[in-house]
């Protein structure tokens, strides 16, 4: 695990009202206590590494180690300096929908989501191996038979993956041998191969 992520994980339990933004910033509150020298060292280290790009006290920029008296601080955290760190499985899926990063840590602890994400990636990798048309811009691909089946990559949520691990082997076995079609509501299913 990168050192910056390791250090950030020590601070993360003490952050509150954590908000992850689409452009990669994480905003959070931290209740600062100047007597806690260990945490001051940690905040300074994370600032020097560029992980915490800004500390604000009542809207004013402050810099460690001079963070002032006790009180809440607004932190602006740069996820670009935290390679492989994700607040939630939703953000992990949003940025890596079909291929897991080589090494990653998700703050949201949920074993079902973890297994579901792994199964979803395995399924999407399998489907991609059958893909006829790629749309990199739209983050989707198409399976083409007599009709085209659209597979959007970033449209699933962690909750939807909960039952996938148990069903993955049979789905892939089934899909591997059959052809595909799409219903009016966007779901796809396999149809038997016509043997004439």
């Amino acid at each position, binding site marked *: 695990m990168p050192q910056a992520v390791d250090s950030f994980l020590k601070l993360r339990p003490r952050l509150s009202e954590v908000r992850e933004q689409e452009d990669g910033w994480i905003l959070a509150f931290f209740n600062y206590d100047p007597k806690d020298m260990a945490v001051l060292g940690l905040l300074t280290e994370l600032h020097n590494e560029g992980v915490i*790009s800004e500390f604000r006290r009542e809207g004013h920029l402050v810099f460690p180690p001079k963070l002032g008296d006790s009180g809440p601080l607004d932190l602006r955290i740069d996820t*670009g300096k935290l390679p492989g760190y994700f607040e939630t499985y939703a953000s992990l899926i949003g940025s890596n929908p079909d291929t897991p990063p080589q090494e990653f840590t998700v703050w949201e602890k949920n074993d079902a989501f973890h297994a579901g994400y792994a199964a979803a990636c395995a399924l999407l990798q399998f489907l991609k191996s059958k893909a006829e048309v790629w749309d990199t*811009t739209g983050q989707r691909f198409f399976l083409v038979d007599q009709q085209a089946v659209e597979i959007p990559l970033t449209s699933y949520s962690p909750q939807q993956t909960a039952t996938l691990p148990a069903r993955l082997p049979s789905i892939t076995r089934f899909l591997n041998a059959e052809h595909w079609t799409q219903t009016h509501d966007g779901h796809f299913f396999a149809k038997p191969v016509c043997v004439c």
Partner: protein
Amino acid sequence: MKDIPAATGGYFFAARFTEEDEDLLLILMLHQEQGHAIDEPTLTLKRSLNLQMEHLDLAARISISGWQAGKHEPVSLVRGRKEVSEYFKSFIGLHEPRTNTEGTQKLKIFIEQWMEANTYSQSEKEGVRERVLDYAKQRKDEPVELNVISTLVDPQRHEKFFAEANESGLGAEFHIDRRSLSPWVRVIYNDSDIKLNFSRRLLNKRVRYNKRDKTILIKDIELSEEDLR
């Protein structure tokens, strides 16, 4: 000092004084030149010696209380038009470290505060960080000069920036620790036709890079009509 070319003329000046409870020692080399002035009683021209204050190239401000308190940088050099000579640095016993982590941190914070106080936009801030980083890289193992950084940060008010930065304890020249500026480093790609520069936090968000195909996709780009003609 025998290996260093000797100074050629000038007067050594030293003053110890207190400013805001700080015990300070000022050391400088003064040069004077022959000039002319008007003799008031006779209203005729007379020869006069003038101190060349505008050419003050060799000066050091030493914080004695800072030095006694174990401060890392008790000495700051005043820079004129020329490099601060090795002779002068050697004479006052100043041995600069090759990298200066504390000075670099101080510079980084001072620049961020300056940009905040002068309400720079996000893109202006990014521009300043990029220019300062480029300059630090260009200098390699040579010290950076505060007056150059001043013009990179604020070309309109570079003298004010220099004066306030110098007053806050930043020397006129110092070795930079480029690792301390790593938070400013962005993803940069340049070839003869394309220049790309973006924050790493946008990877897999607005910016998608396909390593296998060596392609990059950037979303939400708006080019002006003029650029597209």
